[in-house]
């Protein structure tokens, strides 16, 4: 992964984020305030509204995005902390040229692994981090990855089915 890190200093007033493969240079004090959360910047400044705010205090998991491939609660992350980091949101996991969806997204459709769907982007991002590059994922791993996600429609059963389906297909195709 290629990330260009800017020289940082006490007086630095600009940060650089890579979101879904695209570079954004943001001026602190203008585009971003020091107290802005990453959720806020993604949604309100950069227009990635697929990232959802369920609680804004780190309890529900709806705002989960990937920072350097790891799932992170973007409502508890300050944007200024993300200088030089690569971030992926729900809008960034399909194939950008063909528009083809990620296998997780396809499985979530096939199994209708939600009702209202508000928690879905966050759940998919956590699962994406779990599955990518991990050949042996157990049911316990899946439950661990999902344990920080609230879903009030309680579609957990359908979610588990969808993930297992992805793992099974992956095994059959011999791909990671």
């Amino acid at each position, binding site marked *: 992964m290629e990330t260009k890190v800017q020289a940082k200093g006490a007086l630095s007033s600009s940060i650089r984020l890579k979101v879904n493969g695209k570079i954004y240079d943001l001026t602190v004090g203008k585009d971003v305030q020091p107290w802005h959360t990453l959720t806020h910047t993604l949604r309100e400044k950069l227009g990635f509204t697929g990232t959802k705010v369920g609680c804004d205090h780190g309890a529900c998991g709806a705002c989960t995005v990937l920072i350097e491939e790891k799932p992170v609660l973007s409502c508890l992350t300050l944007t200024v902390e993300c200088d030089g980091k690569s971030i992926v949101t729900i809008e960034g996991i399909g194939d950008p040229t063909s528009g083809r969806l990620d296998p997780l997204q396809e499985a979530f*459709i096939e199994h209708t692994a939600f009702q209202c769907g508000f928690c879905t982007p966050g759940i998919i991002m956590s699962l994406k981090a779990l599955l990518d590059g991990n050949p042996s994922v157990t049911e316990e791993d899946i439950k661990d990855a999902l344990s920080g996600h609230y879903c*009030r429609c309680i579609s957990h059963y359908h979610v588990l089915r969808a993930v297992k389906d992805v793992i099974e297909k992956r095994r059959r195709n011999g791909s990671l």
Partner: protein
Amino acid sequence: MSFNIIGKKIPKKDAPFKVTGQALYIDDVELPGMLYGKILYSKYPHARILHIDTSKAEKLPGVKAVITAKDFPPHFRIGFMKDNPPLKGTKVLSTRDEIAAVCAISPEIAEEALDLISVEYEVLQGIFDPLVAMREDAPILHEEVGSNILKLPWRLVCGDVEKAKKESAYVVEDTFTTQWVTHCCLATSGCVAYFDVNNNLTMYSNTQIPSLAQNEFLEALTALGLRNRRVRIIQVTIGGGFGSKLDTYPYEYIAILLALKTRKPVKIVFSRDEEFFATSPRQCTITKISQGCDRDGRLTFREVEMILDNGAYTSWGATTPSVMMMPISSLYRVPNVKYTATCVYTNNTYCQAMRGYGNPQATFAIESSLDHLAEESGIDPYDLRIINANEPGEITPQGFRVTTCGLKECIEEVAKRLNWKEKRGRGLKKRGVGIASLIHVGGGARVYKSDGCGTIIKMDDFGKVDVFTGASDIGQGADTVIAQIVAEELGVPVEDVNVIHNDTDICPWDVGVHASRTTFVAGNSALFAAKKIKKKLLEILSKLLEVPPEDVAIKNGIAFSKSDPQKSIPLARALRRIHFTTGGSMLMAEHFYDPQNENLNKEFRGNLSAAYAYGTHGVEVEVDTETGKVKILKYVAAHDVGRAINPLLLEGQIYGGVLQGIGYALSEKMIYDNGYLKNGNFLDYKILTVRDVPPVEIVIIETNEEAGPFGAKGIGEPGLVPTAPAIANAIYDAVGVRIRDLPITPEKVLKALKEKNKG
């Protein structure tokens, strides 16, 4: 009967939008020039407002308007009892009372402005216990009402309970209490209001009742001096409903007034804290119940007295006794019934509809008490239920005409899968089994003047179908079920049916998404509209194919002659032929379906629903006698659904209902301390996660309801109705303690075990 599309596991139509982040929820709506509204709530649960000073807030740069009660017409009130002013000017009655509101160019500035508003209060003694509020010497909260007891005389009397009680061989009496629980929709409440140049209002909304909300906002506009205006409700993707959006709330009227004052779109979206304390939960109840049976176990009577904490104002929570009457009078055959319910004003939060609408509270009491009666009479709880199970064709004491009824099959199936006879009463390693059943409306519910839903269908030049329905989709899958019904009837692929359900400017009237009514009512409406368009279509195709209409069949979007399948034409081509010709036509049809059900009369009798849904849940638990913790080992949920239109979505409804029910039974509780909510956040109010979900086995019983679309009945709410008593009964079987107060926490179980051991 064989189907092409009905009964298939078809993914939800909006799935691609929801998995890609493209679905737009209320917080995603952005309009040019939009302002952000915030609300100042009361500091005290009961106080007089002596003075409000908004001058500093008004001067804060970026603030565009500040409003207080004086900006609304003096007598403007909301709610069905008209007892709730959107902003409170002289007195506050709860900590969620709205006192002032601000809108500004950013949410942060609006928030800052709230801090600059000063309010002087004279604090008054609060009343937080309905039993205290009912006392003669209690201060009156609503002076204009003159009493803390609401003028809602819920009272159902069928037969002679006193006589039956004397003649019963066995009688039990218990008192059960239930707690406040809240919907916890993952997307918080909100709206965007704006007025166009003609003073017509558009509301982007989460509502479950677009047509009724439209009516209520029109009343508000009239009160604000805007007569004969239009109101358009556009529903965004709704991030959870569960009944929470069945009424209009003060924040919506506040947004409307702020939009009117500023001539700009105004958005109000709740924080999670607000969502907890400023929306209306399921009401808590105190229920005294007595039931009896004869020597053979036949139920003789059921008597229920209930007190509901109404909170400070009145929303639909106060009408839940109308639904509680249903299981009280009609769950199992019981000839003599008496039910009274009293709703009482307190300085607590006011209550609303929540999945099941009173039925879970009533069923917890009925089914727990039934197990008590089983013990008293020495009859196995399973046998007692089978002896008294409702049957098709029966008319219940309240006047419900039971058409299809798979209750017996549900009970039998659950007992079989639980291995009831083997496991019951064995107390093996503190394990036990319990069952409980339910009745719910399954064919709409006539709680309003109309229980109807309209549908408009049109077919385009490409053979595709647009269905404009009054139904609302809150995630449950109305869009998909309606598409399946229309596709099945017309013989087109389900992908070719587009369902539009979110705009009152183009969709017909519907009473709302409640009472598990959408599949039955909106489904029938769509089916009848499809039949009408199909009739026109067959006539046209008959001419084009030169065969009689009854010889024409349509499959997969292609019309053909049944007797001579060589004669065929794609629908798209047929539709273009009749369109692009002199004096051409386009295919359109409409239908308004209002089920054959009845409003309850003054004695609260009548056939409330066109069909009734039944079900039984069975559970095996293990109770840790050291910690009081209850573990669910097995859970079986059997439901008579008439017909499963889409098993994938149906399972979603049952799983969701059961799991919300388990939360209701074991862990969820809003803790109020003298009017202040103490656990109003997702860290302290626990809903079940993937780690907490036990294995649930779903059993679908199909009874093919004649009045339902393709035989279907409603299933939205039933999943959580019998959950708590089934668990409570299993705990009793395991360790011999009966918990009569929800939720059944480890502390309560331990305390009961200690008391039992002492005794």
